[in-house]
């Protein structure tokens, strides 16, 4: 109960912080429009060259899949790695360890709170804009779409947080986690469908995207595919598996890391 109260207080505080400073929302919106918009224009052109269909996928599906990827990325969950590294380097971790909270859950709530406002606003505006511009695919009107989307988003949030937290905790052992972060982040981006929707992947790469934690953290992009109706149970199962696996890894890493805390000063 206390965790939920603290979590909602963190989110409330950060949303208020974002409302106080609307510039952040504008930057997020601009980033989303720039990245997603340019890619959508390129895909529209490529799909038109191929008579509107690539690898059995229509532009409509590819556009929504890509939008879901970018909307999810606005949550900025990947930022938890850098936050943890900053805490360790600056010694802020010491301040948080003096509080009656779990450092990990505090950081995770904080990360969710950081991106939630932008995520809600941009997703809402984006859905309306995209529905007007390209239309809505049939798969999104299926009865299971909304409930499975919610499940997959929640599991994706948890998996992303655990995955990137594990990367961040490495800062207790290695000075600079940037190279590790870079590799993990780019793998997530590629296998999640940032550059190319997963439906257009070659077979082997598609399998890797489905079975690896990197791709599984972005299953939200699969929810608009034609095959979602038959595959969603398996994909939710894969997500649950990786969530549990990375929860255990994160907790073990943190238990070891706690003993590695050192002190700046005398």
């Amino acid at each position, binding site marked *: 109960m206390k965790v939920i109260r603290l979590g909602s*207080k963190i989110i409330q505080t950060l949303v208020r912080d974002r409302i106080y400073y609307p510039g952040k929302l504008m930057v997020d919106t601009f980033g989303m429009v720039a990245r997603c918009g340019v890619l959508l224009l390129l895909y529209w052109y490529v799909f038109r060259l191929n008579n509107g269909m690539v690898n059995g996928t229509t532009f409509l599906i590819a556009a929504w899949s890509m939008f879901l990827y970018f909307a999810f990325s606005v949550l900025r969950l990947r930022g938890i790695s850098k936050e943890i590294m900053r805490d360790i380097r600056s010694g802020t971790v010491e301040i948080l360890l003096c509080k009656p909270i779990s450092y990990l859950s505090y950081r995770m709530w904080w990360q969710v709170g950081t991106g939630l406002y932008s995520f809600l606003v941009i997703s809402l505006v984006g859905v309306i804009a995209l529905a007007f511009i390209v239309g809505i695919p049939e798969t999104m009107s299926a009865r299971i779409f909304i409930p499975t989307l919610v499940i997959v988003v929640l599991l994706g949030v948890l998996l992303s947080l655990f995955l990137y937290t594990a990367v961040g905790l490495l800062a207790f052992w290695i000075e600079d986690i940037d190279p590790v972060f870079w590799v993990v982040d780019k793998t997530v981006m590629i296998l999640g469908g940032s550059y190319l929707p997963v439906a257009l992947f070659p077979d082997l790469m598609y399998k890797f995207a489905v079975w690896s934690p990197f791709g599984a953290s972005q299953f939200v992009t699969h929810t608009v595919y034609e095959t979602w109706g038959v595959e969603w149970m398996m994909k939710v199962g894969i997500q649950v598996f990786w969530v549990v696996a990375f929860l255990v890894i994160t907790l073990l890493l943190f238990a070891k890391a706690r003993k590695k805390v050192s002190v700046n000063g005398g």
Partner: protein
Amino acid sequence: MDQDSIVVSSLSKSFSFPIKNPSVGWIKNLFNPEIKEITAVDDISFSVKSGERVAFIGPNGAGKSTTIKMLTGILFPTSGEIRVLGLDPSNDRKKLAYKIGTVFGQRSQLLPNLPLTDSLEFFGVMYDLSDREIRHRIKELSELFDLGSFIDQPVRKLSLGQRMRAEVVVSLIHKPKIIFLDEPTIGLDVVAKKSFRDLLLKINKEENTTIFLTSHDVGDIESLCERTIVINHGTLVKDLPTQELARTFVKEKNIDITPNTTFSVFPELPEGLKYAVKSKDKITVIIDISKIGVQEALRKLLDVFMVDDINVYDTDLETIIRNIYESNPAR
């Protein structure tokens, strides 16, 4: 002030870290590096009574911060035992956190973009206070510490002095029984320091909060703490009332002389006396009291100088502390 708030017995803490050996290859340095071990705290024991105001001092690298971080549960001791309010900080970190407050001078715990009230509410929730308790406590602290003029300002717009006040107030939101302060007055001007010290004395008086403070500022020690523990190279050097610190370690006294004659060449002084200041209007002489008594020193000086005024006074606490540090050279 009878109960022990803090009991530390035979406490030690070592850190080990790999060091690069330039005479061997990078593969050996990467996979089998030499390990260097540093003992930051070495077998120290002390206790602090409830409501006491204790200065825990020492030069840089003495082991102050390491000790304070073991007392608050951030670091695990290598050996020895700690009880803070009856709890073991390593095993009962969260339970202990409800009973203690911490202020680290160089690090802020406040929410920078939002008004101070938001930080207070935020930490109130963190310490599991009800909304009503939070409102009541904010009002109480605001009145007690006169926060009215800046409580609604975003924290990043506060002056350093106001921010340090705010840091202490935030750490008091849950009425802690002990407050640990690690170099809290760093960077504050004299007025802000005075106001900060008054605030701590008020907490101690009004709420009987035990104060455990590390500082390099002698003013903090003199005006705040009734007891001083000196640590150097990880070992406890002295533990005594602050007033006795001067009495025990004074090896020198100072004499200010206002001469009524001017000197072009200052006369030689007898053994045990040396000049600290030689000017036309003022001469300061330091007496080494292990070599010469004050009475004899005065007699000899009056034989040498014709004086308008003379003033004998103790060495300041800063010099005394420096003498203590220097009498415990590096191991």
